């Protein structure tokens, strides 16, 4: 038994002393600060680890939506005509050769001739499109009584280098400007022209600069080297060329071809792109979509619209639903029944039909976005009204309402000063769960193409997903990044909303929305 423990039953009387003897006794002020309802809820919220984590990710995603379009070197209106559905590419990371951001595109079953064609691009431009060989297959074929061994390769190529040459038509002044750029920077943009009759009448094959046979397969000399087929017919030259020439050119190759009032050139698109963008290399963190837009920027633009739109819709629905539900719940009886019939009818109309009808009727008159907004408002408030109605039924019979009524408070005062503040917690928290619902429906509608917001918002997540869906096999990145963004956004919003609801109404903890 320690000395600290005392025998509380037999305390001698002299040990007691009066706290106050002569003065009047006052209540002391509270030493601790009173914790408000809101602070209490926040404390509970911060103890919910998954919700806090989700909130951080959510904050990051919202920050992304704000910042990404500013960080991207491209705007939403920059649409590259050639780099369409191209994979993610950043030159600095690509040069590290670690297999990411290298614009890799897979080509299966490439035979020796195709491999030679890839190499030809390397030989001409000095940029090797071949990143790596992922597989080699050897097949033996019986041909004219002989067994021929054929080797095919599965390869990954840098799509940006692999694009190689394109034909472009320039005005004379533009052609002069390109030559000037070439002289200043030493970057070869224009390459010698190849006439289709020199390459066995093949057309639309700008990457072929060597002699080919009738099937289009490269012809090699005795050393296995490609034989150039550049045009030397100066009578067809479109405009004089006074700029850098490719190695091996003795000055006889022509660099442009005569067209009516203009010249046609074979340009290396990668270098031409640098010419167009003031020397900048193509930098697509998440690749490009079907319109040649930068997906990194486009997701941000789409997310901005989705978030603002969802918050707007929730705010409007919240206001309408709260008033409607308040009237229903407060008056009850016939009013409740009549208003309930109206919401029954409205909630029965399928959302696709509502959206379509609003688009068809109103899009011409008030614009696409307002009519889309009306479609959401038309049916969206019903859930909120039902919730408010329930809360009103819960509170309207309680004593404090009777007391206020006895004191002569008007109906409006009772509804909005006495009942509504009690119900606001659950109404606000359900709003946090309405936002992801709105984003999801909005994405579905733009994905299905029922609503086209591209003219207004630039693009939306739904539009991006829809564009990506048509090229799932060739350019999975176009669908992957918007999907990740949308998936994360939805999960985090729901976790955040659940956490908020648990914090504000601890009694409902564990019930998922």
């Amino acid at each position, binding site marked *: 038994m320690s000395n600290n423990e005392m025998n509380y039953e037999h305390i001698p009387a002299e040990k007691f002393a009066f706290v106050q003897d002569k003065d009047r006794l006052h209540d002391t002020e509270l030493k601790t600060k009173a914790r408000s309802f809101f602070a209490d809820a926040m404390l509970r919220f911060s103890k919910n680890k998954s919700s806090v984590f989700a909130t951080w990710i959510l904050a990051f995603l919202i920050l992304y939506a704000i910042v990404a379009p500013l960080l991207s070197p491209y705007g939403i209106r920059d649409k590259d005509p050639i780099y369409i559905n191209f994979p993610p590419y950043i030159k600095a990371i690509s040069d590290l050769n670690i297999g990411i951001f290298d614009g890799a595109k897979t080509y299966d079953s490439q035979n020796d001739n195709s491999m030679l064609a890839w190499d030809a691009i390397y030989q001409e431009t000095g940029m090797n499109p071949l990143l790596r060989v992922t597989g080699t297959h050897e097949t033996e074929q019986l041909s004219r009584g002989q067994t021929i061994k054929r080797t095919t390769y599965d390869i990954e190529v840098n799509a940006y280098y692999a694009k190689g040459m394109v034909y472009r038509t320039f005005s004379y002044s533009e052609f002069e400007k390109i030559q000037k750029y070439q002289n200043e920077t030493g970057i070869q943009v224009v390459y010698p022209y190849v006439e289709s009759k020199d390459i066995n009448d093949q057309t639309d094959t700008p990457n072929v600069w060597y002699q080919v046979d009738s099937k289009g397969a490269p012809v090699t000399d005795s050393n296995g080297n490609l034989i150039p087929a550049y045009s030397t017919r100066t009578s067809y030259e479109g405009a004089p060329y006074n700029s850098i020439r490719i190695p091996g050119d003795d000055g006889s190759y022509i660099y442009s071809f005569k067209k009516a009032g203009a010249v046609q050139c074979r340009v290396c698109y990668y270098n031409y792109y640098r010419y167009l963008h003031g020397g900048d290399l193509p930098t697509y963190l998440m690749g490009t979509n079907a319109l040649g837009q930068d997906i990194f920027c486009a997701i941000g633009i789409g997310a901005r619209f989705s978030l603002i739109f969802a918050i707007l819709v929730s705010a409007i629905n919240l206001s309408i639903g709260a008033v409607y539900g308040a009237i229903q719940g407060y008056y009850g009886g016939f009013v409740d029944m009549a208003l309930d019939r109206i919401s029954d009818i409205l909630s*029965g109309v399928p959302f696709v039909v509502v959206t379509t*009808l609003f688009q068809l009727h109103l899009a011409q008159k008030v614009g696409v976005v307002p009519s889309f907004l009306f479609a959401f408002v038309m049916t969206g408030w019903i859930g909120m009204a039902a919730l408010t109605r329930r809360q009103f039924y819960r509170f309207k019979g309680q004593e404090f309402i009777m007391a206020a009524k006895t004191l002569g408070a008007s109906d409006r005062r009772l509804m909005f000063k006495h009942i509504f503040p009690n119900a606001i917690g659950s109404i606000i928290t359900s709003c946090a769960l309405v936002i992801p619902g709105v984003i999801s429906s909005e994405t579905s509608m733009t994905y299905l193409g029922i609503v086209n917001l591209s003219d207004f918002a630039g693009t939306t997540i739904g539009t991006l997903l829809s564009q990506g869906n048509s090229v799932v*096999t060739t350019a999975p990145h176009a669908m992957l990044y918007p*999907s990740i963004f949308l998936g994360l956004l939805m999960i985090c919003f*729901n976790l955040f909303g659940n956490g908020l609801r648990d914090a504000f109404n601890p009694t409902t903890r564990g019930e*998922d929305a």
Partner: protein
Amino acid sequence: MVKYTIQRLLYMILVFLIITCMCFILIRMLPLPALPPNDPHTEIIQLRRESLGYNKPYMVQFGIFLKNIFTRFDWGISEQLYIGRSVWSVFMEKLPASMIVNLYSILWTIPVGIALGIFAALKKNTWIDYLISTLTMVVISVPSFVYAFLIQYVLCFKLRLFPFVMKGGTDWFSWPMFVSVVPAVLALSFGVIAGFCRTTRAELTEVLTSEFMLLARTKGLTKAQATVRHALRNCFVVIVPGIFGEFIGILGGSLIIERIFAIPGVGGLTLNAINARDYNVFIMSTCFYTAIGLLASLVVDISYGFIDPRIRMGSKK
């Protein structure tokens, strides 16, 4: 109970008529798209429009529309997509594809979903419960086209297990058809599994902590007996109406999944009708989706009464 059912049914028909009337008038108010000039059907369609009262007041048009449905079951003629064909026959042609995908999906998802929910509830607050609850939350949050994309890319393209889109033809129950709808079925399934899992878990955890469960244990039942006989029965009051609702939903299909996997179903028809401004098909689709939605909620409400005597008694008052 019979009286309640009839009341609800009549009310549903009334709501259906009001919605249809609203949508019908709104659709008829739209300007009509031009008909192809040299098509032999054009003249017939013009004459039909005359007889359908296209220049009469909208309520008269709606009356003629209803009269044609009730007397001849004539829903009109497709004017753009399947020019000259009866809308009803086009619709019936599209319905099986939508139904087959949904049917396969709910046949395995409902048992799996309920089983997972029961499992999670019995193992409440263990890592299994947390894992199942988290996955459920993730699957419910993520929109269906995201995992439709994953399924299409991984299973159909990378692993080449299934064909990319649904196969044509009308051999609905053949093996190749089954294989070709598997991706779409999977994409539809996750959401349903998660939904049932969550409801079951929530209900069962509530029932398991109630006092009659304690009584059941104290009178000597094992945990398994008490769970199966008392807890599950009670939580099925909520789950079974959900199953009925899901079965009605089979008809509806999913616009998004049908588009991704090129299922020649009702959803695709509706979208095409909207894009091609084929209003007769669109009216039919509107009626169809409205009816499905109303019917599902009606069946859910009534089945509550059939399953739970407490609710049945309450409705008699």
